C-alpha cells in the first residue's frame, strides 16, 4: 500500500468488476484477486449469511485450504468473525490468537495467520456478511488499509444485494412460468381429474410448490360432506420428481407431455391416493380442521398439530404429520373444497413463500373445479334439450302419422262398407232363394261364403276403429306436479335465446297454486312450443310476461290459468285464422304441427287453450287447466 492514488485505482477496479456481471461468485473472486494484488496479505475470505441468518458460509476465498474451505460455517457471535457480525464493527488485530474473542477453526488452518482484519458487510442496519484478510506475520493494519477494506465491503454489499434481487426476480419469473404452464396444461382438458392432477403435481414438484404431499377434498352438496378426491404423495414422489425434471427438459412439447402423463392415471393406484379417497367428513362445526377451512373460508398453517385447538389426535394419527397447511378452494365466493399440504418426509417448515404459492395453485384448482361443474351442467342441459327436441319431433311425427292414418282409414272405410253391406245383402237373398229351390244345400253353401266375407269385413272395421282410437287418444302419463316449476324449467331452456334477442322475462307465478295432474313431458312440450313462438315473434327485443293464477272459469269451474304474454306485435289476421291447423306454418323449418299439437295435449288434459291476438301489440296465450281432473 503505497499511497492514496493506488487506493483510487483499487476502487476503480472494484467498481468495474461490480458492474461487469451479475454472477455473485465470479464478482467476489475477482474482488479478492484485486485485494491480493494491491494489499500485502496472505489470505482473504468473504462469508455470507444463509437464509436462516444464524450462520455464515464461506462464499469466496484465497489463501485458505481449498478442499475444506467450501464447507465452512461460522455461527453469529462466535469467534472474531462472529463478533464483527454481531457488533457490526471492524476489528483489526495484530495478534489475533491472543484476543479473548478468538476461536480456533481448524478448517481454515488459522494457526498459520497471526494478524487479521475483519470488516462487516452491511445492508442498511443489517450485517449480511464479513470480509476477512489474514497475514502470517504479526502486523498492524493502517487506517488507509482499513478504509479501503471498509469501502470494498460496502461495494460487496451492493453486489450481494443485486445478486439477491436478481435471484429473487429469477425465482419469481420461474414461478410465473410454472403457473402459466400449469394453467395452460389445465386448459387442455375438461376432465376434473386431469386438471387437479396437474395442479397437485405443481404443488408437490420440487421447483414449484415443493411440498411432500398434497391432497384435494371436494364438497358434495347433495350429502353435505367433504370428500377426499385425490392425493399425490410419497409413493409417487419419485414420479413427481421425474416428471418435474422431464418437464424442465421438454419445454417444447411440454403441454402435450403433461396431458399424456395425466392420461395415464398412474396416481390412481397409489396407496396414498386411495387413502385420501377413503376420507369423507360431514360439514358441521367442530368436525375437523378441513371442515373448518370450508366453514371459515380461511387458510390454516398448522406448525404444531399436537397443540392446535382444531386438530384432533385422530386426525394427526391418520395423516401421520405434525405440521401441515390447508387452503380453501373458492370460486364466485363459494367454497368448493380444500387443499391440504404437508412436508411429512423432509419435515421442512412451511414457509410464507410456499404458502403464497399454494394459494395461487389453489386459485387454479378452484377454477378447474368450477369449470368442471359448469361443463357438467352444460352437458346435462344440452342432453335434456336434445331429448326434449327428440320427443317434440317424435310427437309431431306421431301426430302427422295420425293425420295420415285418419285419411287412409277414411278411404278404406267406404269400400269396406260397400263390400260388407252387399255381402250381407247377398247372404240374406241367397237364404230366401234357398228356401224356394230344391237344391237348398248347395245355395246354403254359397250363403256361407258370403257370411265369411261379412265377418271378415267386420273384423277389418273393428281394426280400423281401433287404429283411429289409438292415434286419437295418445297416452298421457299423469303425475301430480308443480306447474310453476315446469314453467321455470322450460324458460331455462330459452335463457340464452332470450338473452341474445334482448327479451326480458317477468314471472308472476302464484306459488300457492295446488299441484296439477299433468303429463310432465307433454305439458313441457306445450310450454316449449309457446315460448318458442313468443321468442320468434320478438326478434328485436321485447317483454315476456308469464303468470299463473287460480280462476273461476265458465260455469263456475275452478281452473288454474297459465298466461304467456309477449310484445311481438301480434299475428296477421290471415295467419291467425290458421294457427291451429295442422301443417300450417310460417317458419321454413317447422312442421306446422306445434300449435295444433299443443291444443291437442291441453285438451287431453281436459283444459283449454285460448289465443288472444292484439294486432300491433302482441299475443297472449291462456291455458286453463281444470283443478279437479276426472280420472278418465
Amino acid at each position, binding site marked *: 500500500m503505497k499511497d492514496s492514488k493506488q487506493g483510487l485505482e483499487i476502487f476503480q477496479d472494484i467498481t468495474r468488476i461490480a458492474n461487469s456481471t451479475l454472477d455473485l461468485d465470479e464478482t467476489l473472486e475477482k474482488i479478492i484477486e484485486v485485494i491480493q494484488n494491491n494489499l500485502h496479505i496472505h489470505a482473504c475470505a468473504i462469508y455470507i449469511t444463509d437464509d436462516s441468518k444464524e450462520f455464515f458460509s464461506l462464499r469466496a476465498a484465497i489463501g485458505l485450504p481449498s478442499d475444506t474451505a467450501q464447507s465452512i460455517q461460522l455461527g453469529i457471535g462466535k469467534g472474531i468473525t462472529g463478533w464483527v457480525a454481531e457488533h457490526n464493527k471492524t476489528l483489526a488485530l495484530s495478534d489475533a490468537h491472543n484476543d479473548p474473542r478468538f476461536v480456533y477453526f481448524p478448517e481454515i488452518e488459522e494457526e498459520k495467520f497471526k494478524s487479521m482484519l475483519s470488516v462487516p458487510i452491511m445492508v442498511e442496519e443489517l450485517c449480511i456478511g464479513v470480509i476477512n484478510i489474514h497475514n502470517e506475520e504479526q502486523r498492524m493494519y493502517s487506517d488507509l488499509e482499513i478504509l479501503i477494506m471498509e469501502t470494498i465491503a460496502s461495494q460487496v454489499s451492493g453486489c450481494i444485494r443485486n445478486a439477491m434481487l436478481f435471484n429473487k426476480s429469477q425465482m419469481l419469473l420461474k414461478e410465473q412460468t410454472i403457473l402459466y404452464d400449469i394453467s395452460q396444461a389445465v386448459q387442455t382438458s375438461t376432465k376434473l381429474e386431469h386438471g387437479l392432477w396437474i395442479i397437485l403435481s405443481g404443488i408437490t414438484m420440487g421447483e414449484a410448490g415443493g411440498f411432500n404431499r398434497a391432497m384435494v377434498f371436494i364438497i358434495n352438496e347433495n350429502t353435505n360432506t367433504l370428500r377426499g378426491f385425490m392425493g399425490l404423495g410419497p409413493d409417487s414422489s419419485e414420479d413427481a420428481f421425474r416428471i418435474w425434471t422431464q418437464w424442465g427438459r421438454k419445454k417444447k412439447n411440454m403441454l402435450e407431455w403433461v396431458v399424456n402423463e395425466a392420461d395415464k392415471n398412474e396416481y390412481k393406484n397409489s396407496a396414498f391416493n386411495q387413502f385420501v379417497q377413503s376420507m369423507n367428513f360431514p360439514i358441521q362445526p367442530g368436525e375437523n380442521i378441513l371442515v373448518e377451512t370450508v366453514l371459515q373460508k380461511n387458510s390454516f398453517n398448522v406448525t404444531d398439530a399436537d397443540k392446535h385447538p382444531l386438530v384432533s389426535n385422530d386426525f394427526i394419527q391418520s395423516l401421520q404429520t405434525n405440521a401441515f397447511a390447508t387452503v380453501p378452494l373458492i370460486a364466485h365466493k363459494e367454497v368448493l373444497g380444500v387443499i391440504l399440504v404437508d412436508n411429512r418426509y423432509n419435515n421442512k417448515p412451511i414457509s410464507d413463500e410456499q404458502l403464497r404459492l399454494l394459494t395461487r395453485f389453489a386459485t387454479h384448482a378452484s377454477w378447474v373445479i368450477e369449470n368442471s361443474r359448469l361443463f357438467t351442467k352444460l352437458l346435462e342441459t344440452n342432453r335434456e334439450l336434445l331429448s326434449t327436441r327428440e320427443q317434440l319431433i317424435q310427437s309431431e311425427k306421431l301426430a302427422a302419422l295420425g293425420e295420415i292414418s285418419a285419411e287412409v282409414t277414411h278411404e278404406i272405410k267406404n269400400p269396406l*262398407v*260397400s263390400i260388407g*253391406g252387399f255381402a250381407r245383402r247377398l247372404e240374406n237373398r241367397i237364404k230366401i232363394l234357398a228356401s224356394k229351390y230344391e237344391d237348398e244345400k248347395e245355395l246354403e253353401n254359397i250363403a256361407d261364403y258370403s257370411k265369411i266375407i261379412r265377418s271378415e*269385413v*267386420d273384423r277389418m272395421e273393428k281394426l280400423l276403429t281401433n287404429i283411429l282410437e289409438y292415434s286419437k287418444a295418445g297416452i298421457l302419463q299423469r303425475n301430480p306436479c308443480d306447474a310453476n316449476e315446469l314453467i321455470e324449467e322450460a324458460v331455462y331452456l330459452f335463457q340464452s335465446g332470450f338473452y341474445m334477442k334482448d327479451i326480458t322475462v317477468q314471472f308472476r307465478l302464484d306459488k300457492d297454486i295446488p299441484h296439477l295432474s299433468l303429463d310432465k313431458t307433454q305439458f313441457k312440450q306445450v310450454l316449449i312450443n309457446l315460448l318458442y313462438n313468443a321468442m320468434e315473434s320478438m326478434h328485436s327485443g321485447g317483454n315476456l310476461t308469464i303468470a299463473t293464477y287460480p280462476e273461476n272459469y265458465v260455469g263456475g269451474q275452478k281452473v288454474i290459468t297459465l298466461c304467456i304474454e309477449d310484445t311481438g306485435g301480434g299475428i296477421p289476421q290471415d295467419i291467425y285464422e290458421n294457427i291451429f291447423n295442422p301443417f300450417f306454418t310460417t317458419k321454413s323449418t317447422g312442421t306446422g304441427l306445434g300449435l295444433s299439437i299443443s291444443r291437442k295435449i291441453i285438451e287431453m288434459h281436459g283444459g283449454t287453450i285460448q289465443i288472444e291476438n292484439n294486432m300491433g301489440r302482441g299475443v297472449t296465450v291462456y291455458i286453463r287447466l281444470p283443478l279437479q281432473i276426472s280420472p278418465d
Partner: protein
Amino acid sequence: MKKILVIDDEENIRFLYKEELEELGYQVTVAATAEEAMGKIQADKPDIITLDIKMPGMDGIEFMRKLKEEKSDIPVILCSAYGRYKQDFRVWASDAYVVKSADLSELKLTIKEILGEGGPSDPHTQ
C-alpha cells in the same frame, strides 16, 4: 210412403243404401253431390236426408249450413266413415250422427226413430 234422400259421393254406398232402405218400404232418391241434392230437395221433398260429410266440392257440413239457412225442417242424419267429427260443434246442427258401417242396423234404427214410426207423429214430417 216416407221419402229418403241419400247424399253420398260413393256410388256403391248410394246403391247399398237404396237397396236396403227400399227393402224396408221407403222411397229412396240419391244424389252424388251436394249441388245435385239441392235440386232433388225441391223436386222430391224428402222426409229425411242421410248426408255424407267428406265429399268433393261442397262438403256435408257446408251443405247442412245452407239447408238451415233456407229454414228447412227436413231432419238430417250425418254419416261419416269415422267418428272424429262427433266432437266438432258444427255437426251439432244435425239430428243424428251415425258412423258408417257395413252393418246398417244403426242407421235404420235412427231413421225409424226420427221419422217417429211406431211412436207419436213427428212435426217435421210432411
